């Protein structure tokens, strides 16, 4: 159970406070309701590039990290297709420094040509390091557009191509900031040995004077239902053949979400999972085989990805995957296996509560998805999934027409 209190400032900023007396560290998490899905298809990678620029200085603070490090703090951020999330941890007595630096960059970012120039290069190097200069690095650049024809999930957060990042202009940057970096488009979570009264005062002082300059109304194209299987084969300079299969699934708030997640656990989570035990260890068809869901806010993907063992034909490997999926769609799960995946969820959740920053992030995520209180009902929702529900959900998802397949093969 994560206890919390919540209030909203006049400018629309939602603030959530969690008290944990056991730690000398406080965590601060600000989530902005903007991600790669909000980008112009001709200017992709922008939300992520912007995340980098948020560290390039604000009106009163030339370097974001400096005052934080001086106060013994540490921070980072990430951008997903759905949201942009900034977080820091700091010794509790210096928490106000966090309020100062976070509110200043929400109040007025300093836009400098130098910062934009440098971050264009840094992100270009990030693109190369993570998506190009390593084996299988470009998989998602291939898979996303295969699975999504109209929804902006068709590009990864890093962007469709390096050119989009290199062409980013100062005007675009300003417009993006004005539109999305507003108090009513953000949620602030503070966790640590703090009390709500104290946090209320700090929030009033530092965040209340920030005006809203825009309104984020999201109107994204809906991905049409996929009815025919899609297939792509590429050859690259890699040491082993790989296979990737994705199926369209529900969104994060859909009632099928927890069953869908458990299906991926049954197949791919841990050494006793079906994929590992059967296809990797016993049949030796793969050297590794994963199953997971994307957890997207809009309709997401169920992903199976694996490296095929030397000498095994891609088709045989693929048939073995299909066979495991068919079992899930046909047979009811035994009670022990169902309990197993649920027990795993339970311990993952308890583990997540051992860390002050994880708690802050989970609250922020639950709130942006609708209601912070849901953080405390997740385990119950997983526990409520029945064997019948799992079979129904598997039948719904694993339709051949709903699947996109990528064969990523070695040259020669």
């Amino acid at each position: 159970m994560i206890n919390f209190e919540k209030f909203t400032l006049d400018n629309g900023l939602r603030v959530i406070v969690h008290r944990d007396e056991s730690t000398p560290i406080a965590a601060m998490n600000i989530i902005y309701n903007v991600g790669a899905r909000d980008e112009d298809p001709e200017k992709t990678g922008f939300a992520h590039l912007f995340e980098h620029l948020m560290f390039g200085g604000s009106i009163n603070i030339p370097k974001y990290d400096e005052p934080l490090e001086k106060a013994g703090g540490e921070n980072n951020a990430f951008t997903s297709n759905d949201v942009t999330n900034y977080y820091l941890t700091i010794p509790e007595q210096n928490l106000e420094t966090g309020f100062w630096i976070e509110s200043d960059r929400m109040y007025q970012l300093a836009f400098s040509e130098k910062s934009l120039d440098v971050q264009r290069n840094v992100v270009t190097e990030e693109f190369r390091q993570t998506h190009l200069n390593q084996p299988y690095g470009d998989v998602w650049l291939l898979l996303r557009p295969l699975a999504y024809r109209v929804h902006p999930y068709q590009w990864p957060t890093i962007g469709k191509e390096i050119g989009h990042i290199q062409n980013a202009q100062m005007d675009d940057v300003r417009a993006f900031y004005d539109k999305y970096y507003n108090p009513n488009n953000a949620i602030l979570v503070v966790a640590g040995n703090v009390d709500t009264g104290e946090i209320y005062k700090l929030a009033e002082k530092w965040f209340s004077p920030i005006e809203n300059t825009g309104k984020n109304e999201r109107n994204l194209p809906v991905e049409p239902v996929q009815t025919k299987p899609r297939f792509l084969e590429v050859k690259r300079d890699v040491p082993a053949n790989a296979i990737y299969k994705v199926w369209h699934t529900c969104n994060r708030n859909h009632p099928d979400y927890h069953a869908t997640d458990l299906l991926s656990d049954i197949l791919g989570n841990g050494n006793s999972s079906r994929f590992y035990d059967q296809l990797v260890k016993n049949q030796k068809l793969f050297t590794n085989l994963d199953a997971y869901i994307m957890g997207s806010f809009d309709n997401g993907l169920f992903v199976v990805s694996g490296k095929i063992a030397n000498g095994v034909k891609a088709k045989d490997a693929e048939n073995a995957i299909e066979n495991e999926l068919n079992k899930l769609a046909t047979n009811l799960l035994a009670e022990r296996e169902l309990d197993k995946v649920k027990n795993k969820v339970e311990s993952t959740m308890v583990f997540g509560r051992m860390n002050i920053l994880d708690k802050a992030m989970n609250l922020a995520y639950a709130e942006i998805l609708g209601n912070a209180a849901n953080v405390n009902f997740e385990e119950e929702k997983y526990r409520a999934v029945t064997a019948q529900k799992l079979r129904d959900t598997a039948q719904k998802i694993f339709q051949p027409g709903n699947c996109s397949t990528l064969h990523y093969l070695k040259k020669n």
Partner: protein
Amino acid sequence: MIIQDFRKTAPLRGEISSVKLPTPEVFSLDNGIKVYLLNSGTEEMMKVDVTFEAGVVYQEQPLVAHFTSKCLIEGTEKLNASEIAEQVDFYGAHLDTINTMDNAQVSLYCLNKYLENLLPVMQEVVLRPVFPEEQINTIIAKSREEFLVKMEKVDFIAQQAFQTLAFGKGHPYSSSIVAQDYDKVNSELLRNFFRDHYFQGEIRLFVSGKLPKNTDTLLNQYFGAHPIFPQSHQVIIPATHHKPVEEFIPKENAIQSAIQIGKLFINKLHPDYHKVKIMNTLLGGYFGSRLMANIREDKGYTYGIRSILLTMLKAGMFFISAQVGADITQKAVDEVIVEIEKLRTKLVGKVELDLVKNYILGSFLRSADGPFAMAELVKGVVEYGLEMDFYNNFVKTIKNITPEEIKQMAVKYLQPESLIKVVVGKK
């Protein structure tokens, strides 16, 4: 827009005057295995680590220590691999094996309520592994494939080359391997390594979390009866006098080069260690470090660059690593040397030094937060035969270190002409 002058002033900051260090409860099991208990935390969860003097340094051929540790969970006298995996997963636990240069470790993370169900499994894994041949061969083949994938990555190739240059081929602390090494490992070698090195030397248990009352009784029940031989194996660590060499390994089609620059170094046991750790943080150990400020934030040559101190029982290593745009590889290398020279010739300013001191104190405070983190701190000194006072001295050194001392450390340890430089990719 309303002018908001109050934002110009930084809020007052408090000093981190002290870091509350944990005091482990220490006792011995009936057979002499030492236990370090850290009873704290708020959630009903715990961690049990058992460590053996069975790391890479003790092996006679590459990969043997690694696979012995990795394959402990591949079958025991009573349980096969699938049964072990199923039981661990059923109780929502994690059973990990870790192999470092000096140690082998088996770790169990679990909910307190399942401890009694899981200790029997952990006991099997730790006391009675059988290393079944067919399974072991599959694991080795799988790892070989993964190794081949890694050998396509410039940063991994650079690490491997650096290791070989620093220690020399075949040195007990060198972790460099070639694909053929995988063909020479087999289950019998693992069984022999297990027989000769686990239960020989110090065995330690580090148990942390909000611990159930009967924890010590249970530990004794499952680990206290097995005979142990406390006499450590003596490994002869040959003296290393690496040459400051430069090696360039071309990689066709690379769009980034990996660079690794460094040398063998002092370790935790050396009186200068705290000071060089602070110097290292300043140079490349945090986001705002000099290397990051120059090579990422000013020049945009890289997504990230860092400098690292590695400490082993009888060796130490310092290196800087980054992946940089292939076209500016040499410029990036030059800037690294510029930053090292700067440390050696100019005194660090008060503002920067204060910042680094506070950052390290905050970071140390974080590293002592929560029972599992505290257990790591305890382990970090116990293995070296040091006391918890090591950390008090660290805090004292942070507070008192002067710009002159930092410069002295750089002059003493970071002569540019003593460095090994590896570049993989393009020049």
